[in-house]
């Protein structure tokens, strides 16, 4: 594949996207840092209260490094991250009595694990289900089945996610109490127990994301059905299923993968409302709490994770788009 010493176009694109991703992430971190710095009030006042003396505040600020100019603090933080050090949380520092402060990593890691667990389980259910529904509605388009599936999907996507969550709690935890309404998992729990605990949040999220993916699959497939090569496939005697699976789907992956990536990213970064409803200890809640208390190191770490999630998932979608397109994979 290496022609005339050139890098294969797929690899070149991946490298280019990675570089762009890194740049995007830097921009995001600057924006987050700047916006938190510009927020009125600061961490010391929030923790020590209005009654604190000037000396305590100055001492506390010094301990946190807040006496330094913003640009220096940003630079030091960036340097730390480059070496794998995300810093120490502002909470529970010595100036507030005794030193109970924790490393940002220790705070974020278990929460991220929980989030990825919930996102992973949801994805395992939602993605195949969405693809199946999208393909079958395209295959039997304008049938009663198609209309019902579309109507239900549109209904669930049109409702706020907390509302869906409460309906599920009402039905499955209150009226017919078969599932727990609280999803307060911890690391000691066995897997089956954890799965039962997250059943309701996973269901709510599935309902939220399935419509997008299903409708994009359906639209992408239907778009291609009118093309001459699809007619040709039929005239070569292929069954409806064979036409869709062999001749349509391979050409439809690019848009479908993009929407799936977008929804998976949402599962990691955008589910704080569902976490709150089910009291689920995910990373969304952690970030919201950290923003409230101006805990800059934690906010920055979360923002970094969110940015990386988006960038990586979109990169994967791009790569899928390239490898399913022979024009790009096998240039003339």
């Amino acid at each position: 594949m290496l022609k005339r010493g050139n890098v294969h176009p797929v690899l070149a694109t991946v490298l280019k996207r990675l570089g762009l991703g890194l740049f995007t992430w830097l921009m995001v971190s600057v924006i987050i840092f700047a916006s938190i710095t510009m927020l009125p009030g600061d961490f010391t006042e929030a923790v020590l209260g209005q009654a604190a003396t000037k000396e305590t505040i100055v001492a506390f600020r010094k301990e946190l490094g807040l006496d330094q100019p913003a640009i220096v603090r940003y630079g030091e933080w960036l340097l730390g991250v480059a070496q794998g050090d995300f810093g120490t949380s502002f909470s529970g520092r010595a100036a507030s009595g005794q030193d109970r402060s924790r490393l940002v990593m220790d705070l974020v890691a278990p929460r991220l694990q929980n989030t990825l667990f919930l996102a992973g389980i949801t994805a395992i259910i939602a993605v195949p289900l969405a693809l199946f529904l999208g393909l079958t509605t395209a295959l039997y388009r304008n049938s009663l089945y198609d209309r019902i599936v579309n109507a239900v999907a549109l209904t669930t996507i049109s409702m706020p996610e907390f509302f869906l969550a409460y309906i599920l709690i009402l039905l499955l935890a209150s009226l017919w109490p078969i599932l727990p309404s609280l999803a307060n998992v911890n690391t000691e729990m066995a897997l089956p127990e954890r799965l039962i605990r997250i059943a309701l949040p996973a269901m709510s999220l599935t309902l939220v994301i399935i419509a997008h993916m299903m409708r994009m699959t359906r639209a992408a497939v239907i778009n291609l059905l009118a093309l001459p090569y699809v007619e040709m496939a039929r005239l070569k005697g292929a069954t409806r299923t064979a036409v869709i699976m062999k001749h349509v789907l391979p050409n439809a992956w690019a848009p479908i993968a993009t929407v799936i990536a977008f929804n998976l990213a949402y599962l990691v970064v955008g589910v704080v409302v569902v976490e709150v409803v089910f009291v689920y200890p995910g990373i969304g809640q952690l970030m919201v709490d950290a923003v409230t208390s101006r805990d800059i190191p934690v906010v920055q770490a979360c923002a970094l994770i969110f940015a990386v999630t988006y960038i990586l998932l979109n990169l994967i979608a791009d790569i899928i788009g390239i490898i399913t397109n022979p024009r790009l994979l096998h240039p003339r």
Partner: protein
Amino acid sequence: MTTNSTSDTRQKNDLLLEMRDVRIEGFSSGRWHPIIKGIDLTLKSGEVLGLIGESGAGKSTLGLAAMGFARPGCKIVGGSIVFDGQDLAQLPESAKRHLWGTRITYVAQSAAAAFNPAHRLIEQTIEATVRAQISTSTEARKDAVALYRSLQLPEADTIGNRYPHQVSGGQLQRIMTAMAMAPRPDLIIFDEPTTALDVTTQVEVLAAMREIVASCDTAAIYITHDLAVVAQMANRIKVLRYGEEVEEADTPIMLSAPKQDYTKSLWSVRALQKPERDSMDVLLEIDHVDAAYGETPVLFDVSIVVPRGKTVAVVGESGAGKSTTARVITGWLPQSRGEVRFKGVSLPNALKSRSVQQLRQIQMIYQMADTAMNPRQTVEEIIGRPLEFYLGLKGAARERRVIELLHMIELNENFADRLPSELSGGQKQRVCIARALAAEPELIICDEVTSSLDQIVQEGILRLLMCLQEEFGITYLFITHDIATVRAIADEIVVMFQGRVIEQGTKSAVLNPPYPEYTQRLLSSVPEMDPSWLDRLLAERSRDAA
């Protein structure tokens, strides 16, 4: 090939397909309209029937109906389609599927669109054969390579491993023929298989298709709007118009003595002739121009002289640089070397640096009238825009002029309020001509303006262009790959090949011997009405090659 015993037992001259009183309806603007109005068609084993007519005559619909297939939005509402004892009009699709791709196969008009971009060519070639278990995958591959070879495809052993975008249009069309041939069907439907090809490529594809159909003794329905092509391929010709049969006869009889006026009129473009005129007054001069798309050079040292008030035809196959030359003249593609002079004054290379007057003097008409017009604008807006932009006409004056222009293109004023979607193909092209005329240009560049039109509509457009030239002394630079058109309207001819000008001269000089080698090849590739033309040509070429 291992199986298909049916065709071994069937005798030549057995009736293979019998369509009786076939009626097909299509759904448009909210109701069902008849498309095919009761046509009978019979085909014997090993026989080739040509279906001919202008677009909208229902040729493709009838061809697909011979497979028992109706496109979405169409339905077979009456009649019988008996193929080898089974009535396809009554059979459910699941049963017809067993015939499709194995006993009846289909060759589509645009091979580039009919191949799935996601799969290798050989996979698509053997798909139906392997699925129907006519042969194993290994045998089918071997057979496919043999077919590729007999269709004279280059690198027959490996070409199948490529993807559709990696081979040329003419090669794709031959691979599609191989695909249709792979299961050794009893019947092949060829749906305008060479319409999208250059004349030089067309000859090779025609020869390959005819050879393989004859050697396998396959019956075929050959659909085309080109009489000369069908004359080479078919034993019998059926002429269709408005979904009805006009007449049917054996090929030699049909060519020499057509009975119906309509059939005679299909010949008419070839009868169009224009006396050649001489003029010394130079309007446009392209002087040693080189041009490139990015890094890829496409024009090399192109020099063309366009005399005032005459028609200069630029001919050559696709990729010869004809349209690129037009882009250089209009300033769309600034040349990297050389000069374009209009009335002796050098034109700035780039479009942006040309004055409104310079822009007004050169107008263009495009091949696809469809895409050259804003679908949301009425005819009046389309024609009125250049009137306002170049000539500053407004209000009632503009309206009056639009109506005058409509009369010039032989349409009445009722057309002013129509949208492009409410016009026929020929009418659309007329509106584009009116739009070019509105600027009162001295030079109009016509880029394949009749290529996507039927013979009869083509003739009308060409006559109109000639009339306008007569009346207003407009100069045309006429880009085309159709030699019949060139014979009809050109005063001078420029032959281009691979980005270079091979020769320029008066029509009589270029179209008569002695020819440079490429011109000879191009001219001899133009199909003639004589049914023995292809045989003669192939014989001549193999003699020359030997």
